[in-house]
Structure formats: structure tokens, C-alpha cells
């Protein structure tokens, strides 16, 4: 290492906050506050929000008798799968996929917005009664924890037929929802894997980093014999193969 590099290294070492008691204290406080804030945030985003069940019928498609049944079916779906459920009737044909998505997003955000990065797993059923079409949009945020999975199909069908069983015009909602799940590549991670990825791996990594950091330098053994040797004469150096029968 040349002198310049060495002096730069020395300068860096001397400037390390750990070398100064006051700076070390300040840095420690900052790091501790950051840790507390991060964990508060993680706790906040991990707490499951209260689930919302909304059934809106601005197109007046549901009969007053069927509305309580639809609401209870939606509530059951929400309770069983721990998800938000939004059922809404819309005007139009529902043929424009992007329009449908933005309509679903708008409705879902309006009724089920738990906050930034929080678990917003749920389903939004868009009903277009004038043309007899249903679109189901699935919302997850990486924390679906198995709630929104392929088993939802039956439940959505059940709800759908409860709403519109008499009308043969409607398509199966579940096929749409499955398409969406596949299309968006929803990754169903599961609780165990989530724990491994978010807790166990970071724990192991932190332990490894600590072990590396505090690894003590070994004290060297005695120097080799040649360091003090002044002469060496070989009197005899023979290697003889032994005869074996």
C-alpha cells in the first residue's frame, strides 16, 4: 500500500464515529431511532386491517328481498377468507378491459383503502346488468397469506349465482378472477415461507454479519525455524523401499 492510500485509510479510520465518544453516542441514538421507526412501520403494515364488505347497487339491479342475502354472502366470503369484498353494479358493457380495471381500482380504493403498504387483499365484483357481464378483480399486496387463492373460485361462483342466479345472461365470475390471478402473477407465498423470508433469513444473515464482524484475529505461532537457522548440512537423507512378500 503506497503512502497516499495509507494516509487516506488513516484519515478514514480516524474519522470513524466510533472513535469519538460524543459522535458515537449521537450515531447510536440515530440508529436506535431508525430501528424503532422501521419496526413500528413493519408492525403497522403487518397488522391486518378491519375487513370491509360493501355491496353497492347504483343501477338498482338487486331486488330489496335479495339484497340482505347478497350482503350476508359477501360478509361470509370476507370472514372465511379474511379479505375485503366489494360488489358493485355499473352501467355500460364492460367490454373495455382497461376501463374495467380502473373502475375496479376506483371502487376498491374508495371503500377498502387500509393505507400505504398494508394488506389490502380482497375481491371486487363488477356487475354490468345491462349486458349481463361480470368482472371479478382480485387485489393482493404480497400479503394475501393464502386468502386469495384458487380456492376462491367456488366462493365467487357461489356469490355470483346468489346475486344473479335467475339470469342466465351472466358469465362465470370465477373465470375472470382466475384469469386475473394468472395474468398478474400473484405469488402465493404462505405464512411459513413468509416467516422464513421476513424473519428467519434476516436473523441468520444478521448473526452471520455479527460473527464476521467480531471475528478475532488469531495470535500467530512462533516463527519458522529457518528464520533463525544459519547453517544446515544433510549428513544422510535416504528413502528406501522395503521389500514385501
Amino acid at each position, binding site marked *: 500500500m503506497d503512502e497516499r492510500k*495509507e494516509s487516506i485509510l*488513516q484519515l478514514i479510520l*480516524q474519522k*470513524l464515529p*466510533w*472513535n469519538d*465518544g460524543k459522535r458515537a453516542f449521537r450515531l447510536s441514538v440515530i440508529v*436506535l431511532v*431508525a*430501528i424503532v421507526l*422501521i419496526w413500528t412501520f*413493519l408492525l403497522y*403494515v403487518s397488522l391486518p386491517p378491519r375487513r370491509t364488505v360493501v355491496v353497492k347497487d347504483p343501477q338498482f339491479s338487486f331486488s330489496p328481498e335479495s339484497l340482505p342475502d347478497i350482503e350476508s354472502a359477501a360478509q361470509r366470503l370476507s370472514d372465511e377468507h379474511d379479505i375485503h369484498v366489494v360488489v358493485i353494479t355499473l352501467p355500460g358493457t364492460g367490454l373495455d378491459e382497461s376501463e374495467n*380495471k380502473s373502475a375496479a381500482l376506483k371502487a376498491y380504493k374508495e371503500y377498502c383503502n387500509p393505507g400505504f403498504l398494508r394488506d389490502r*387483499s380482497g375481491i371486487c365484483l363488477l356487475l354490468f346488468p345491462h349486458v349481463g357481464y361480470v368482472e371479478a378483480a*382480485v*387485489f*393482493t*399486496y*404480497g*400479503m394475501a397469506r393464502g386468502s*386469495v387463492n384458487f380456492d376462491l373460485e367456488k366462493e365467487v361462483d357461489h356469490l355470483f349465482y346468489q346475486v344473479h342466479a335467475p339470469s342466465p345472461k351472466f358469465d362465470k365470475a370465477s373465470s375472470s378472477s382466475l384469469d386475473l390471478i394468472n395474468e*398478474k402473477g*400473484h*405469488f402465493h*407465498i404462505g405464512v411459513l415461507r*413468509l416467516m422464513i*423470508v*421476513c424473519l428467519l433469513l*434476516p436473523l441468520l*444473515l*444478521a*448473526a452471520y*454479519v*455479527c460473527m464476521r*464482524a*467480531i471475528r*478475532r*484475529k488469531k*495470535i500467530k*505461532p512462533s*516463527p519458522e*525455524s529457518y*528464520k*533463525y*537457522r*544459519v*547453517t*544446515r*548440512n*544433510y*549428513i*544422510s*537423507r*535416504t*528413502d*528406501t*523401499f*522395503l521389500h*514385501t512378500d
Partner: protein
Amino acid sequence: MQMGRKKEARGRKMADSIKCPNCSGNLIFDIGRQKLFCEYCLSAFVTEELEDTISIKEADEEPEGILEEGLKITCNACGAQLVTEKNSVVTYCSFCGSPAFIKERLSEKFAPHYVIPFQIDRDEAVKKFLRWCNGGRWAPCEYTSEKTISKISGIYLPFWLFDIDCRIDISAAALKNGRPLDLVRKIETKWRKLPFLGSKSFNEDLMKAIEPYKLESISVFHPGYLHGFMAECYDTEGEAVKERAAARVKEYIDEEFRVTVSTSYTDVKKTADRSEWKYEKVRYAMFPVWLLRYEYGGKVYEFAINGQTGAVSGSYPISLPKVILLFVTVFTACAALARLILALFLGGLF
């Protein structure tokens, strides 16, 4: 040339120090110049020029109680009374800062044959210390504080130097490609100035770790080299060190044998070891070491630098709060990152 030494007064032992012949200021051994230097009149002297300043041959008998713990000596510069440790040869007056030389501890019996002068100065020693402990990143904050760094002291330690002539005679059995072999090694070898620490107060393993010294630049002893540093005299006789010397020689015999055995041989087993050695000469020398002792959590951590070559060794304390902080920080950062990756990249529609 002014003699800095004063005769004993009122039964007290007087400390010695080498004074500048020009201005009577204290001379200090200057590492850069490799000379005794006067900080007051900026004169520099080769140590041999001041041959008669302290005559260690005067005290040919060990005065009674000279090796006692807590020996009281009087500073010859300010007259303050100093209490010395058992084996200290050179110390400092805690009142005026003058070097205090206890000549009787360098008498005939304790007079070293050789000395290796310091080549590494204090600034370089501090740099090496900081680099060795990574700026004290994981050590307690106090470990790299100015207070602790000021405790890094240059000290001459007593070493016994052994000249050993050895005749290695080893028979062994080995296998080469499954075929048995009979090995015979007869080697004559000589090791010179093999150093062994002559003090029980210091960690021998640590001293071995900062070996070897460049023995070709060893000098005949002169007290002037010690001026400006601490120094200890031996408390273990050369004879008592021979046991340790024998252990090292056995290691070296094994090593000499090992290097002569081909790496293609397997299952090498010694069948007879008739090696012999004799101690040709045993001499006493002072070797330079920069030393730091630091107590943390009831344990003493030692750090040493070879004062000639700059080789470094030791152990430093680990600060538990810092490690906990590191653990929690890494854990938190990784957990947060993993959570964000899951949320942002493996999530659903938004």
C-alpha cells in the same frame, strides 16, 4: 560532558539520566535520527559518544533490596521521590517527566549484551494500532480514545538469546503409492540468537507472535538506547528458560524433518528420534516493543508491536452494545427489505 548521575544522598537511591553535554537538558533517544537528541539545544549524539555517562560496570554487586517491589528512588532532576515497579530499569519521573534510570538494575548480573534500538516511532505505532483494530469499530469507544492511545508505551523487554547446535537424527516409516518406505534423516543445523522472553510479567505468546526481529542489526548494549522509553530487567534466569527453549527446538526439529519429506508420501510415522542439541551460548538482550494493556469486563487485552519491524499482534475487546446494535440494525434492514420486495414485486394489482 556532564554527568547526570548523582551519588546517593541521605541513604536514598538516586535515579540516573543522561544529560546533554551542551545544555544539561535531558537527552532522549530519537528514533528518526537513531541518536540521543536534546530537545532544548537540538544537539544530537551517537550513543557511543556518551560512553562514560552511565557506567553500568561500576555496580558489580547487586545492592541489597534493589529488586524489591516499590523501591523508592529520587529523581536527579527535581528531587521528587519515585516508587518503582519490581523490574523497572527505566521509568519516568511523574513530577517533572525526566527519564529515571535505575543503574543498579543494569549491573553486571543484569547488564545486557545486546540491544535492538526502536525503529518504529510512536506515531507509526498509533497508526498501526488503529489499522489493526479497524479504528476500534467493534471495540468499546474508549479503546481508541486519546486516553487509551496515550497508554501505548515503548518498552524494552528482556530476552534471552540462545545459540543452539543441533544434530537431527530421525528414522520414519511412510507409504508411497501403497508401498512401504523407510526414511532416514541426519541433519546438522545451527540456530542463532533464538529469543525467549525473560520476564514473567509479559505475555510470552504475544511476544512470539511479533517475532522475528532482524538480528543482523542488533547492537552492543548501551544505556543510551533506553533513554526515552521504559525498560524492564529479567526476572527469569537463562537457565530457567531452557525448558521453553527445548520445547521450541523440538518443534523446529519436527519442522526440519517435515520439509524433507516428499508430499507424495502418506502415513508418515516417526519410528525413532535420536536428535541431540546443545546450547552454545546464552546471552541477554533488550528488544523494543510498543505495548498496550487494556482492561475490559474484568479481562486484560494486550496489544504489541515489534518496535523494530512493526509486526503487530494482540487481542482487542468486543463491545457488546455495538454488536447488539449491529445485529438489530442488520436484522431490521433485511426484514424491511424482504417485506418490501414481497410487497412491491410479488404483490397483486397495486
